[in-house]
């Protein structure tokens, strides 16, 4: 899932302070799961904004709407009925959602209320860790289900560097060395030979090095 964190309130207030009527748009997908921009967070941010404006003697109309999936033009259409009555849109979705709304309603200013962080998984309640960088050429089948591209600080493809110590990475004592994890996993699976295979330099064009990426499925296109 795509993870996100709310921006500092001051930054959000700087964006929206010139406007009197705002739509605060949440998203029911990833940002709901990582508690950054779902219905609940929309309510909480709207409340904080109300408190701030009331403190300054202003009454700002904030319409709270949470779309099913903000990165889908089909759901972005749901704002049509409200758009004429608003001065600006504040989106609590990931960057994909913000851009979808900005492209659809290009006559209105659209601002992000969250910082999109990474593609991650929930480790335990309230903790998410980066697990994938969307490199476009998955190596997990070779590396025992542990990604060296996302989880090795140096994205090394052929074993650990000298910064590994007792299974941890040199960048921080609580960051696992991905290559230690890979080795332990391959050992447990009896696939140590995989470790000996030298991986060639990765083609990072598929990872975005060749410009913005696109998937075209003719079978699904209209």
């Amino acid at each position, binding site marked *: 899932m795509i993870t996100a964190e709310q921006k*500092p*309130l*001051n930054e959000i207030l700087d964006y929206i302070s010139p406007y009197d009527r705002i739509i605060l748009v949440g998203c029911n997908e990833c940002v709901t799961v990582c508690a950054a921009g779902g219905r*609940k967070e929309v*309510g*909480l941010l709207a*409340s*904080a904004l*109300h*408190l*701030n404006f*009331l*403190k*300054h*003697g202003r009454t700002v109309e904030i319409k709270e709407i949470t779309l099913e999936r903000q990165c889908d033009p089909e759901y972005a259409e749901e704002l049509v009925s409200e758009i004429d009555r608003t001065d600006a849109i504040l989106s609590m979705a990931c960057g994909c959602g913000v851009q979808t709304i900005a492209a659809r309603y290009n006559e209105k200013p659209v601002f992000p209320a969250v910082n999109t962080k990474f593609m991650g998984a929930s480790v335990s309640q309230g903790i998410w860790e980066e697990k994938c960088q969307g490199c476009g050429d998955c190596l997990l089948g070779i590396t025992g289900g542990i990604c060296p591209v996302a989880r090795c600080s140096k994205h090394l493809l052929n074993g650990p560097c000298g910064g590994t110590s007792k299974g941890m990475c040199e960048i921080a004592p609580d960051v696992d060395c991905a290559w230690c994890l890979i080795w332990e996993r391959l050992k447990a699976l009896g696939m140590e030979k995989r470790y000996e295979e030298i991986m060639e330099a990765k083609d990072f064009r598929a990872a975005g090095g060749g410009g913005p990426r696109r998937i075209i499925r003719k079978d699904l296109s209209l």
Partner: protein
Amino acid sequence: MKIFEPEIVAFCCHYCAYTAADMAGSKRISYPANVKIIRVPCTGKVDAIHIMKAFEKGADGVYVAGCLQGDCHFKNGNTRAKYRVEQVQIILGDLGWEKQRVAMINMSAGMGERFARTALEFTQTIKQLGPSPIKITHTDINQQAIRF
């Protein structure tokens, strides 16, 4: 000059603080009438949005009163409530409000005296802080309207 009497909302757990308030009543221990009690099945049921809405509607202070640490009827509702209170304190801090306007308090059902004492102490804290910034603004606006 009119004396400032704060509006205080207290979210009280049914199993402890609410019973403690009852206990205070049975023992004829008085506590400030500024405190308006909202009974909840567990403080774990109190979300940050409930506290924020109380402020939005004009509360000068809000506190959540739950069971003693480790004694929650539902295992860890009071711990969750504590984190949510901290979350609201951060939001209030970001908005330039005093963080002391929201607090988490723990007590058992038998602590009638403690309920009354914390109600009094919290009311005094809020009296020292003054009215909620929303009310100050409203008063300022009204005064300006009169002046013009």
